[in-house]
């Protein structure tokens, strides 16, 4: 194979001619700009890049990318993208979805895409609300959420999207925030480099129906004490002064947060995204409380597992390698296989 040619693309090349129509102030603008700026880095021709989305505010995303794109139906983007990806391994296929789209109506397709390890980059814009339908609670809304459809407060417990993805044994799981462009791009970079399903939850602000849902993670006065920035190979400490850390207490099932001064340095968990057992990343995903304290962001898990696409294409290639005839000859042979008889 020859060396890839530098395509010299810019963010502008990825902007379509369509007017962007999200509400002013929506977190989606920041994500769109970050992705348009990031895409040239991948050095993948625009024509080999496809964005597939479902339904919801975030799912308008493909219209604004000057690549191939499909705005499909509610919840089904992972299924449609699976058919595209597995039959066209030359493409870079991205799924853009939201919390209602991916976790409510499309929950089944999401978990099956992840367990199959289809070569999709799945970006879940989580704003914890239904925006396009004007403000009903979503499957990631906190219990007791008062919305148009739940005037007395929602009664059902939310999904933790990362826990769910990890339960499906997703091979790549990450989280980032709409307003932190640098971090967002770093997680996308790792996702893009990953072979197989890469699941990235992006905390996104809906300033109309759920404004400030992630404010503690963005406000300069609180964010350092709330956010755990995961770095592969680094001890997990956080807080403005590194005053907190993550430990695995003997006898405990999961991970816990301690004051750094109260533990010995060797007790602090060193982040390893390549741990095969999803239980470790799952434990990380369980750290945040209802108040968003101890929210890890970054790459939780990135393990090597053959992608569905590769296994299927290998099977096809192996079968085709045995072929010595033209397709028409093969077909004639197939039609005439089994018990035949001839009438003269």
């Amino acid at each position, binding site marked *: 194979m020859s060396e890839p040619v530098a395509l010299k693309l810019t963010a502008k090349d990825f902007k379509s001619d369509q007017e962007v129509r999200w509400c002013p102030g929506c977190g989606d603008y920041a994500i769109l700009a970050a992705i348009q700026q990031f895409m040239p880095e991948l050095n993948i021709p625009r024509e080999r890049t496809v964005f597939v989305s479902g339904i919801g505010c975030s799912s308008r995303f493909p219209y604004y990318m000057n690549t191939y794109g*499909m705005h499909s139906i509610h919840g089904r983007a992972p299924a449609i993208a*699976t058919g595209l990806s*597995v*039959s066209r391994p030359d493409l870079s296929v991205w799924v853009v979805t939201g919390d209602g789209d991916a976790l409510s109506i499309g929950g089944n397709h999401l978990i099956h895409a992840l367990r199959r390890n289809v070569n999709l980059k799945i970006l879940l814009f989580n704003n914890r609300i239904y925006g396009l339908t004007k403000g009903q609670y979503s499957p990631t809304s906190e219990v007791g959420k008062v919305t148009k459809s739940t005037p007395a407060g929602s009664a059902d417990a939310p999904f933790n999207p990362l826990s769910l993805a990890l339960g499906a044994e997703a091979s790549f799981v990450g989280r980032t925030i709409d307003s932190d462009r640098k971090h967002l791009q770093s997680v996308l970079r790792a996702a893009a480099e990953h072979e197989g399903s890469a699941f990235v939850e992006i905390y996104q602000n809906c300033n109309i129906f759920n404004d400030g849902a992630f404010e503690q993670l963005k406000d300069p006065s609180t964010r350092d004490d709330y956010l755990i920035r995961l770095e592969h190979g680094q001890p997990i400490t956080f807080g403005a002064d590194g005053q907190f850390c993550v430990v695995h207490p003997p006898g405990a099932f999961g991970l816990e947060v301690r004051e750094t001064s109260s533990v010995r340095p060797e007790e602090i968990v060193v982040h390893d995204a390549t741990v095969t057992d999803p239980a470790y990343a799952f434990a990380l995903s369980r750290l945040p409380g209802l108040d968003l304290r101890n929210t890890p962001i970054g790459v939780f898990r990135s393990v090597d597992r053959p992608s569905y696409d590769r296994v299927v294409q290998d099977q096809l290639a192996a079968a085709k390698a045995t072929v010595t005839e033209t397709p028409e000859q093969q077909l004639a042979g197939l039609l005439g296989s089994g018990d035949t008889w001839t009438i003269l």
Partner: protein
Amino acid sequence: MTKQIRQLDRVVIRFAGDSGDGMQLTGDRFTSETAQLGNDISTLPNFPAEIRAPAGTLPGVSSFQVHFADYDILTPGDSPHVLVAMNPAALKANLADLPRGADIIVNTDEFTKRNLAKVGYQTSPLDDDSLAGYVVHPVALTSMTVGALTELQVSKKDAERSKNMFALGLLSWMYSRPYESTLRFLERKFAARPELVAANVAAFRAGWNFGETTEDFAVRYEVKPAKMRPGTYRNITGNAALSLGLVAAGVRSGLPVFLGAYPITPASDILHELSKHKRFGVLTMQAEDEIAAVGAALGASYGGALGVTTTSGPGVALKSETISLAVALELPLVIVDVQRAGPSTGMPTKTEQADLNMALYGRHGEAPVAVIAPKSPSDCFFAALEAARIALTYRTPVILLSDNYVANGSEPWLLPDVESLPDLRVEFATEPNGDDGTTFLPYLRDPETLARPWAIPGTAGLEHRIGGLEKADKTGDISYDPANHDFMVRTRAARIETIPVPDIEVEDPDGDARVLVLGWGSTYGPIGAACRGVRQRGLSIAQAHLRHLAPMPANLGEVLRSYDKVVIPEMNLGQLAHVIRARYLVDAISYNQVRGLPFTAAELETTLEEVLKNV
């Protein structure tokens, strides 16, 4: 001893036993032997949905009927001349279908007190005179099979399980069938267990020899080969033919076939068959549900494959939203509905034609698609090719309405010459099509087909976005313009309505018929047989059969109006009749049955004669 040989022109045999007795396999082998001989054949398997219903009970009875003749036949036969009953349940479940004088071969070993009680026989029908009107051949099938295998190293259980081959051997002898292909089949099937090859072959030979030596079977029969068109034939079921048609569509279009499917009776065999043909570049995916199956197929079509999904009625209901998306996206998609008795789970292994309304109308919005129905097992091959042709040429979803009767029934198939199959090659868009030479207009249509360009990802310069939101004519941009929506809705309708399909042909050998029987799908055989019967009584009747249900043939209205009466038999409550009345204002007579079984020619014949009396 030399036995008398009697010539027959046709025979209907029904093999019936417990669902674990291997009756489908026995029937299949007998059919294959019969095909080798050159008889015309039609078969009807009938089995419960339960894999192993409680042994010896009526719900557990599985049967396989084969009709063979020295002339061309159209149905698996109304009533069997011979019933092979492997146990009391099989006798009881099938007796009502037998005409007086029929032969009944019973496995006496299974007529125990316990087995009789299971199906409510107080006394054995073999011992009282309840079978007096029939020719009963009591055969100790199980014990004779076990006896024939004593020298072999097989367990008693495996020996007993070979009894279906004893029955096959006996019937093969009775009807002078060539058995070499069965011996070869057994060698292939049990290749990994040579002792089972030996056991089954020995059981088969024991059955054959029993027929030759016992005095109970004094007559041996022959049915001469039918006069069939020269060529190479194979016996084929509708599901197998449909699968091969899809493989052929891949070869003739040069496109990879992508099948997304979720297991469902009676369509799963298509998934099984296509999963074997990776050498042709056929990619199959067993999806997590029906919706994902069609979604993945549509995704593959978007990428330039021939996307196909196979299912039955309940699955089509689930796929409906995605089919509407495919209508909006204007991409090729083939949806195969192997119909079964509904609603809901209904009777999954029984046949029905009640999904026509769903195929024609079962979507939200104005979402027209093309609909095709094969008329016989072998026609499933050509119907699949035709579905692919329409999908690829007109960039539209096409629903292929098979049903359990043609899917599992079989008939001889004259193998087509591959070069004679339609050329399905398509051209993907490669260049901008706008007037300025640089713009790509994804919804600029071909003036003749009204199809939009198929620009697949990977094509530089044609990057574009499509979706379920209404699109502006030509540009494909999102549009809420009222006039544009009206135009697009009408254009999508016209795109289907103007697909050229062959004129409907009328079969009226006497040329003076005043009554036309119009059918669609799998009723072709029974209607044809009934019309023959009517004509043999000196009456005139015309038959026409719809293969294309959307769009309908251009000459259909004219044909319908040229008869005094139009009769439409359907295995539903009149769905086609409803369409015909609405579209053509023809006061058609609707004749309906929804019993989960195909029409018998006899009952249709009676109905048609009633209509003829009143013309």
